[in-house]
């Protein structure tokens, strides 16, 4: 289980997260919704270890993550800009990512081949990211994150640049991977309808705080405040 207890993250003098509390059950698909600047990305980056909380604790499976470097936290992440390494081929991206996993060269090659097949990238091994379509780039980013074999997958608006059918197809792939491997997924999105449709639970952030967390019905039928109601009503 991922737990954030009273986490505050400062960006200069401003609190990007302010005494934020959150619990995510193992194997759950949780969407993070909220207006721009609410702290959604900061929350993911804090779990990943790229932001250091000024106060509060972050833990996964009751293990306090304070001082634990990103690669030892058991999380992988798809970044908003995908962060594909532009000078490397599709296969190169996967192999370099796997080079830190303590695998032998044949094992890395085998795992990369598995990821290519799993995310529909077979035959594109030699292409560089700029030779891929938008959807293929998203799949490569997901393949790279999935290939690491970590139990927690953090997705920071990975499909924001895609049209609706491509986005939905990609989301189906993510859901399938989650089912097959019991991944815990935290999904930051601006697409409320998608979040409401696919998530086990939805967390609404505003001004760096979790203002409501619950199922689709909880949010739609019993919004915690007029602000949440306005946000869900306006964006859907």
């Amino acid at each position, binding site marked *: 289980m991922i737990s954030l207890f009273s986490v505050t993250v400062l960006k200069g003098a401003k609190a990007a997260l302010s005494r934020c509390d959150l619990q995510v059950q193992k194997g759950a698909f949780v969407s993070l919704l909220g207006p721009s600047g609410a702290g959604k990305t900061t929350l993911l980056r804090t779990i990943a270890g790229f932001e250091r909380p000024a106060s509060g604790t972050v833990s996964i499976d009751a293990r306090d993550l304070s001082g634990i470097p990103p690669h030892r936290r058991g999380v*992988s992440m798809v*970044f908003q800009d995908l*962060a594909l*390494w532009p000078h490397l081929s599709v296969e190169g991206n996967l192999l370099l*990512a796997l*080079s830190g996993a303590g695998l032998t060269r044949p094992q890395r090659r085998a795992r990369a081949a598995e990821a290519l097949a799993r995310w529909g990238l077979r035959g594109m091994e030699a292409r560089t990211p700029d030779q891929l379509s938008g959807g293929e780039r998203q799949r490569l980013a997901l393949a790279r994150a999935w290939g690491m074999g970590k139990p927690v997958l953090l997705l920071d608006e990975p499909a924001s640049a895609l049209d609706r059918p491509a986005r939905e197809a990609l989301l189906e792939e993510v859901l399938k991977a989650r089912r097959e491997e019991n991944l815990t997924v935290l999904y930051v999105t601006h697409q409320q309808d998608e979040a409401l449709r696919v998530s086990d639970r939805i967390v609404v952030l505003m001004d760096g705080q979790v203002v409501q967390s619950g199922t689709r019905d909880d949010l739609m039928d019993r919004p915690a405040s007029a602000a949440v109601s306005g946000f869900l009503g306006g964006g859907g």
Partner: protein
Amino acid sequence: MTLWTEALDAGPLWMRTGLLALASTLGALVLALPAGWALARRRGGLLLGLVLALAVLPTSLSAIGWIAAFGTQGLLPLPWLYSPAGVALAWTLCFWPLLALGVWGALSCGEAAEEEAALLALPSWRVALGVVLPKALPALAAAAVGVAILMLGDLGVPGSLSVPVGAEAVHARFSSTFRASAALGASLPMMALAFLLAWLCRGGWRGLASPASDRGAKGLEGISRTAYAVAWVLALGSLLIPAWGLAGWALQGGGFTKALALLGREGVTTLLLAVATGLGAAGLGFAVCVLLPRLSGAAALGAVLLFAAPGTLVGAGLIRLFNAEGWRGALYASPAVLLIALLARSLAPALLLARRSLASLPASYDEAARLCGIPRWRRAMSLAGPLCAGSLVAGALAAAVIAAGELGASALVSPPGVQTLAVRLFSLIHYGADAAVAATALMGMTFVLLLGFGISRKIRA
């Protein structure tokens, strides 16, 4: 004499040098503005290559070129060339291309939308004078101050003209006493002035370091076309006039044959040292930025100081450091000390280019790799290095060119039997310049011209 009496004693000298540098900077700014504007707005590849080549041309070489043009035996003899006024003229002509690159950076901070809004109400020349230039003023001032600081530390021009101002005076004082305190004391007023000016312009440096890619409003294209034409005339004039003078001089006494003999020994030494310095500076700059990112700002400041200070001061410091018993003495007696001197003097551009290039990479590239558990050295070799390769190569080339033309430090620390071409030419010109010097300078200019075009291709890439 104590350090402070040396410093006080040198005060009037630096006041004179400061005024000369101010006049030369203003002159250079007038020449640099059209080229800087043209580069910012039109991005002509050939023009960039030419300006860049002239900018990186060592002042010791340029000075010989301008002596060939305006010296007693030149195309247009100026009787006052070997005077402070001559130094001001030569500084203006040698440094305007470098300042043009600064003006390019400063004028790249503009935004088309702002200019288009102004063009709805004002004619284009008023937009240029009232909107574009005032917005770029802090960065322009920073660029001008940077060039003025380089003039204060330059030995090539006053040394070649034998006019005792600036770094030439520091060199003369140290050479007569061989006391590091004499060099430091004589340099202190200049360094204090340079620090003060650089600090006053601190806002402008940031503007220069982060130019926008916007080419400005299309309504100002008329001005850009004129600036482009003027820039070409100035750049070609700055290349062809000294080259013509040098060629005429070189052909008089079989200069090219003698120059080839000169190039055979000092040329090879210079080439080897320049390559080693270029590779070393680029590698060191990259390593500092990647492995010690928190220290890279302080390292950049230190490197800029070593670059801008009179080379004599750096040489005197190295003599103080290595002229001792044991391993330091062994190092001092070997060409390694010359390499250290050249690295110290030329690290700045390589370090700054590496730093800027690394800062331009999205942080998420490195974060994604950190999540994968890729160690820092591997991230440097597999990600940052290849992604910044263009800037690293440009930094290496710039450092190599600076090393090839360095005078102040290398004249002092060269071990017996090892001498760079710049130092050799510097010595020869003091015994009366001959055809061999002119021919060597001409070949050096040609080489730097080719290198400048190489660097410009990398920068544009």
